[in-house]
């Protein structure tokens, strides 16, 4: 287990020799190779973003780590244990609205806890802690229909944090939000992450978002998705939105943009 240079923390996720092949339905369509030879690691408590053109397989990769899909070849290890199926240890925040509409905010946060058998008093504690953490005090009994898009995403994140997962996986979670809310949520995510550290694997096609929130970026090529390059993001952890207008940020962004757009054309 290698160490994240500069820290004392080891690897959390190891993706080793992973392929994903979709079997063709008839002999006419043949097989579709979604991902090939994926090899990289995610260190504990870092935020890694996977970027790439649309259809390159980044969501597929995330689902593989989550256990919602099985690799055709290779394996994925979390904490040195092989991933065989979905589990609350590898929770996912999806792009679509996955907050359960029939439960209140509290009900949603309690969902995973109830499944684990956590006692009612402990649940109350945990729920109120995380409602505070994501800044939704006062909305404990609100139904999702009364909340805005950004608030619902916060409920989703709180719900995931509440069950104390090993790894937090996020699939373009802010994709459906407007620009201002999106940026606020990026700040929120960083703030929450700085308060309670977790290993995060984030998928997005938004380069700025990737540069802003992560420590390392994995660039995926077009289908079949291969790891093109892993970039270490040079910014300090303490970031705010003004970073986005800095020269260094913009230079990196252009660099990444070129790299990804070659994938799109090819």
């Amino acid at each position, binding site marked *: 287990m290698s160490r994240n240079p500069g820290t004392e923390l080891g690897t959390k996720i190891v993706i080793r020799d992973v392929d994903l092949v979709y079997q063709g339905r008839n002999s006419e369509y043949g097989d579709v190779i979604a991902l090939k030879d994926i090899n990289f690691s995610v260190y504990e408590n870092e935020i890694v973003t996977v970027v790439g053109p649309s259809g390159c397989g980044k969501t597929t990769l995330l689902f593989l780590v989550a256990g919602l899909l099985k690799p055709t070849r290779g394996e994925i290890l979390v904490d040195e244990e092989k991933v065989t*199926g*979905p589990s*609350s240890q590898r*929770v996912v925040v*999806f792009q679509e*609205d*996955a907050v359960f509409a*029939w*439960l209140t905010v509290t009900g949603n946060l309690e969902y995973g806890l109830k499944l684990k058998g956590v006692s009612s008093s402990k649940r109350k504690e945990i729920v109120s802690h995380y409602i505070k953490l994501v800044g939704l005090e006062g909305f404990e009994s609100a139904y999702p*229909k009364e909340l805005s898009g950004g608030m619902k995403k916060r409920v989703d994140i709180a719900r995931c944090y509440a069950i104390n997962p090993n790894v937090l996986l996020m699939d373009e979670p802010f994709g459906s939000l407007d620009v201002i809310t999106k940026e606020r949520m990026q700040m929120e995510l960083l703030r929450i992450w700085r308060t309670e550290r977790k290993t995060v694997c984030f998928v997005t096609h938004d380069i700025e978002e990737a540069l802003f929130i992560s420590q390392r970026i994995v660039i995926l090529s077009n289908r079949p998705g291969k790891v093109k390059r892993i970039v270490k993001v040079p910014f300090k952890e303490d970031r705010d939105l003004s970073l986005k207008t800095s020269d260094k940020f913009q230079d990196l962004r252009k660099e990444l943009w070129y790299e990804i757009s070659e994938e799109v054309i090819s």
Partner: protein
Amino acid sequence: MRLDGLKKALLRIKMTITTKRLVNFTIIVVILVIWYVISMVVEPIFIPSPVDVFVRTYTVYNEILVSSILYSLMRVFLGFLIGSLVGFVLGIVISWNKILEWLFDPLIEIVRPIPVIALIPLFILWFGLGEIGKVLLIAFGCFVRQVVTTREAIKNVPTVYLKAAQTLGATQRVQLFRTIILPSITPEMIGGLRVTVAAAFGYCAAAEFLGAQSGIGYIIIIARRYLYTFAVIFGIIIFGLLAWGADGIVRYIDRRINVWTERENR
């Protein structure tokens, strides 16, 4: 839809509140008045006067009136309850996994187009003119509808909900069913129930026309033989009122249970 549409729009907004009730009430009064006037001009066989419909029916049939209503109501209620419950359970069974779905789907598709009314003579042959035959017929009709509705509703559960639940720790099928599928299908199910209830009254009427010695349908059929149009119309109005009342009850349950759904125009 045009410039003076603005004025009309304001009028409509006003009308949608309690004014609508007043308008409805006035319309009913107007219709009654028109009815009365017409009935004085036309033969009572075709258009009996409203007075006849209510008063004379009571005088002619008053011993069996209340019991008839109760008989019909009981049949509809029992048939609907049994049929919907069994249909609901079977709907869940078919949706449990692919094998069961593939096994039972063709059978359902064969039974589905059977006109339930066409079964009445068969049921009379099997069960005679008694209660059981009628209740079973209504139950059968409700059963078929309910299986289809349940199956559709379960199919329409957004997949992201199921995925999210799995990553929150609901890995067993039973958990998914209990905590996700059942709550999320309730709005669609209630909608289907309204249709089934209305159909149940139809089946009851037909069953009572063809083979009964009690019930509102029985009164209607007997009255027709005596050319008592007023009683026929009375029976029809009673059926309408009962169906309307039942629908109101279901709508009330809908509002209470489905607090969380986003209402559009209801």
